[in-house]
């Protein structure tokens, strides 16, 4: 019966080999060598080496302070399609980030860890900007995450293209009409897209909302708990008509109309887009992940028109899954406090963080909105001033104007699914010359209402 022995041995060997291969590839998740392994979100896949270096430095600093915790950085990017799968599959890092738009639903579904007591014992739960902290609270006032960064949308522009087109890069447009005019000039003079907007993966809806809000749109109203979709409004219609004019009358939007957040960043960093709207904090990613040359970058406020106009903002929250055990929770809080919060609160931490980032050529000083109260924020800006390496003078339009604009939060109910519906509207307007804007808006409004009611 040698053959059977042989088979048994061969299969056992093969299985062992397979097992070891699978084993070595399996993400770490337990304890090793007495250390507690904590998997934390870092940055999107494909970042350059310097970003990894900067993170490694900070990881070392943290592990020196907390020798019992072994930090494992995990590439992470919040993307609607993969997030749900990762959430369901429990494959998210122990500490990860979610945007304000998802926080409410996630915490209502019991998918976020309650951190009320921990935040209180850290002693700064009252230091948050109350409007922002509200994003992570449930009805009973429990807190489910640490808002770590907020942004307002801004108008990003390529200074090189402005110069090449004979425009003054220090005088960016201040009205939507000027944006249109400049876009046409850039397009005619350089052959690049003068203006572009995101259209894919929910970002089309997000940026349509941004541009509509700056014309005074309100997409959702809430009367005594009865939520009504109001996407079919004059400001949104005007925005779509404006986009349609740029696309079909001026032909100043280039050739690619299937762009998501990374897609448009890549095109912009490559110098193919004159202007686009996005979060004010995108500079960091543009330089770190998309290889943009800082000198070409310009940022100003989004033009606002009308009395109701505002600037759409958002942000993200450092959270943990409710499924992790107490030891990981404790370690996770320690990490969040050290990595995200202390640099906003404590001089030494702020300086150390800025130093580490600057040493690896990572952006320090990218414009954001304060998540903590204004005094703390201004204090923080003072601390890191010597290390700021972003071209602040190229962002003057934004930093001078942003505090005069009215901040507007994103809709509360079914935000991302409704953005997904609005993607189609933007895509239709940009890819079909005969798109009927009125009909599209009527349809998206009733579809959005159906989503809200079906909730």
């Amino acid at each position: 019966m040698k053959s059977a022995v042989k088979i048994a041995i061969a299969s056992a060997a093969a299985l062992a080999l397979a097992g070891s291969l699978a084993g070595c590839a399996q993400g770490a998740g337990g304890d090793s060598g007495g250390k507690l392994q904590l998997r934390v979100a870092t940055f999107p896949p494909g970042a350059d080496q310097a970003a990894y270096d900067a993170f490694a430095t900070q990881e070392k600093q943290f592990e020196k302070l907390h020798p019992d915790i072994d930090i494992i950085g995990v590439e992470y990017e919040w993307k609607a399609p993969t997030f749900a799968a990762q959430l369901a599959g429990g494959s998210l890092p122990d500490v990860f980030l979610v945007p304000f738009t998802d926080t409410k639903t996630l915490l209502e579904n019991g998918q976020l860890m309650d951190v009320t007591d921990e935040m209180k014992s850290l002693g700064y739960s009252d230091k948050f900007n109350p409007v922002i902290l509200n994003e992570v609270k449930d009805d009973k006032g429990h807190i489910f995450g640490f808002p770590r960064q907020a942004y307002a949308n801004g108008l990003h522009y390529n200074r090189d293209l402005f110069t090449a087109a004979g425009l003054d890069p220090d005088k960016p447009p201040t009205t939507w009409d000027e944006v249109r005019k400049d876009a046409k000039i850039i397009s005619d003079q350089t052959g690049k897209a003068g203006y572009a907007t995101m259209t894919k993966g929910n970002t089309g809806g997000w940026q349509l909302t941004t541009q509509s809000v700056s014309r005074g749109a309100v997409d959702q109203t809430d009367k005594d708990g009865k939520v009504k979709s109001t996407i079919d409004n004059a400001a949104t219609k005007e925005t779509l008509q404006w986009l349609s004019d740029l696309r079909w009358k001026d032909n100043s939007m280039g050739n690619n109309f299937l762009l998501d957040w990374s897609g448009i960043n890549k095109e912009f960093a490559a110098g193919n887009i004159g202007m686009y709207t996005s979060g004010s904090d995108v500079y960091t990613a543009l330089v770190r992940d998309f290889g943009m040359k800082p000198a070409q970058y310009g940022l100003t406020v989004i033009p606002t028109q009308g009395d109701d106009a505002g600037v759409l903002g958002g942000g993200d929250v450092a959270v943990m899954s409710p499924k992790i055990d107490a030891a990981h929770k404790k370690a996770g809080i320690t990490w969040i406090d050290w990595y995200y919060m202390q640099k906003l609160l404590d001089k030494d931490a702020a300086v150390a963080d800025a130093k580490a980032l600057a040493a690896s050529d990572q952006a320090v000083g990218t414009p954001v909105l304060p998540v903590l109260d204004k005094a703390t924020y201004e204090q923080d800006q003072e601390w890191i001033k010597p290390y700021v390496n972003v071209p602040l003078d190229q962002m003057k339009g934004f930093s001078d104007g942003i505090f005069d604009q009215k901040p507007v939060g994103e809709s509360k109910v079914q935000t991302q699914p409704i953005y997904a519906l609005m993607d189609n509207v933007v895509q239709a307007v940009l890819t079909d010359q005969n798109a009927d804007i009125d009909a599209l808006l009527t349809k998206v409004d009733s579809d959005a209402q159906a989503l809200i009611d079906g909730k």
Partner: protein
Amino acid sequence: MTMTDDPPALAEPMRDEGVARHPQKRKRVRNPASWVRGGGLSNLIFLAPMLIVFAVFSWGPIVQSVVMSFQKTNLVTPAVFVGFDNFAKVLADPNLGTAIVNTLYFAGLALVFGFPLPIILAVLMSEVKRGKGLYSALAYMPVVIPPVVAVLLWTVFYDASPNGVFNVILGSFGIPPQPWLQSSATAMPSIVIEATWAAAGGSIIIYLAALIGVPPELYDAAEVDGAGIWRKIWHVTLPQLRGVLFIMLILQVIATSQVFLEPYLFTGGGPNNATLTILLLIYRYAFQNSLGGAYGEATALSLMLAIFLGILSFAYFKLTERWSTN
């Protein structure tokens, strides 16, 4: 190691069973020892890999999908039975109509482009006397490129600027630049062209193999009857290929009804849902929403698609069985 314990005892009854084709008619003592001696254990050992793998990864999930289509579940709270709600929701979704129309459009275009082309090429190639191997290899090359790489490469080809690869080629013939994937009207045909390019090689090879099986005597006989080249193709070649043609047709319909990769990577279903296919819709139900999948709706839609495809596969199986016994 238990399997090595008792070799001669295992060998003996095996021989009996191999000879006796009706083991159920033989008397058997029902006890474990005789079961082992009768080969029962070794049977199970050999069946074990299949049984485990199929139970966990095939039979189990099939049953589960039927159950889930009647449930509402978000993986956090326990699943609740909701009757036909999921089916009703899916059928009421305006996107379903779009997805069905798009899928039919894809399947139809793929048939128009993708079905006759390999046949024509195969018939022509089969007439090549020398270098048939080279021709086959060239035709098969696109199939060798991993599909994801092919789609990503074609995304570059489909660059809608006047400097895009295809637009430059068109330009050299004086044709204005096309928007390719960037327009609701041209996105689907563009996807079909790539899919046809990627798949034609495989079909050509199958047809070439089938053409070899056409008995030369039939051509000789047709010539005796005075048939010309076209009549020989029409009355000999095509009828002889009838079986494989029909099989390929069904296979293509089954495959195109489940198209996912190309629309997912090329356009994500856009612009304005112009390339949203049924499978993409299932994917969106289950995996797109950042706040948890509508798994019930996804399985309900899968099940409806499966019934349609199951009927096709069954027809296909019956046909291959019939032709293979001929």
